[in-house]
């Protein structure tokens, strides 16, 4: 499936859209970290929580945690949320 990468993470991916796979967001980020080492910790903290200023959309729905299920053909957007002034 296609993963849309925000600007701050393109230092890892060098691309704005990458391909990765998984049955859940947890699996997906394991795959992303294999492809782009270090990227997972930039989005997910050591307790397995999505960092406070990051949002992840699966298609049109915001994911609350890494248990969110995925299906082939889903589109995942990682958003570095607008925060601060």
């Amino acid at each position: 499936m296609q993963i849309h990468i925000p600007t701050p993470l393109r230092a890892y991916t060098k691309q704005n859209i990458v391909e990765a796979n998984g049955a859940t967001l947890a699996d997906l980020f394991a795959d992303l970290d294999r492809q782009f080492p270090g990227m997972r910790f930039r989005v997910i903290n050591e307790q397995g929580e999505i960092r406070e200023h990051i949002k992840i959309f699966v298609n049109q729905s915001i994911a609350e945690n890494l248990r969110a299920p995925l299906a082939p053909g889903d589109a995942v957007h990682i958003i570095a949320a607008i925060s601060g002034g």
Partner: protein
Amino acid sequence: MAKANTGAVTLLIGTRKGAFVMKSDSARRAWKMSDGIMIGATINDMVMDHRGSRTILMSARTGHLGPTIFRSTDLGKTWKEATKPPAFPKAPEGEKGISVHHNFFVTPAHASEPGVWYVGTSPQGLFRSEDDGASWEPVSGFNDHPRFKEWWNPPDEGPPDGPTLHSVMIDPRDARHMYLCLSGGGVFESRDQGRDWHPLNKGQVSDFMPNPTAEVGHDPHCMKMHPLNPDRLYQQNHCGVYRMDRATAEWINIGKTLPKPYSDHSYPIVLHPRDPDTVWIFPLDGSFPLGRVSPGGKPAAFVSRNGGKNWKKQANGFPKSGGWFSVKRQAMNADNHDPLGLYLGTTSGEVWTSRDEGARWTRLATSLPEIYSVRAA
């Protein structure tokens, strides 16, 4: 450390919005400023390995993307992120764990352990790298100490920038002998390279606590161990300036003789690397509600040449009025030249220096982002 350095000085400057490097000529009169490094990331500390490798580590919080460590092995030309930044262990299922908000204090370990570094974090944790800063592991002897929850400030308590672990010091005579500080929490000592720790707070008086002389709960802002006499310790505390001669195991308040309106409340403390009796502080307004700026807008450093028995004001060159300086705990340090050079960075983005041990101050830089750390290399 006893012999004075000569030649150019490199200043490593961490700010709220990136890092900068300033390099001097051999006379320390002409300085050049680098381009910004990692612009946008908050750099709490930036330290060069003085043991020979000259690796530079930066403790960073990268905005949306959380905390990490950046490292350079080519004197700052290129930077790589740590492959495994400091992180607390994942909590067991059903329990709430803690996560590193920002990496704060950075120091190389003992000279006998090349490539080993320590980092202190917020929330309070101690981490160790054995591969020159590339990967980091928690020091469980401290982070998981049976008494740790008595000592620390929980992440949602403490100062506005979060409770920090800072001022990690290793005795140059013995790699097993370590000190660290919790702000707040107090001073702690280990005699077995971090496997076990005990409080070392006797003599501190913290008037904000129900029991001002409690075993723990104190608020050391910055602590230094003298390199020639490692049994001579100094700290700038929330409630005073203290000295300990280790054999006494008791802190002595040496800040009471500071003249009003300069208080004994501040953040940094700087030692003379060749004289254990010489110490500098930069007093801020400590009155309620803690202005934390130079009293009356008249910045001044103070030096004691006798271990804190008395203090001399050093304001020559600073603004005589309208100088509302704030200087954070890692933003005032010294080189090792003769005479000693002093350097400080303000939260308003100015860098100041004295080439003559504080007798006269000159401004080196303006308009940087809020300065968090200044280290001379």
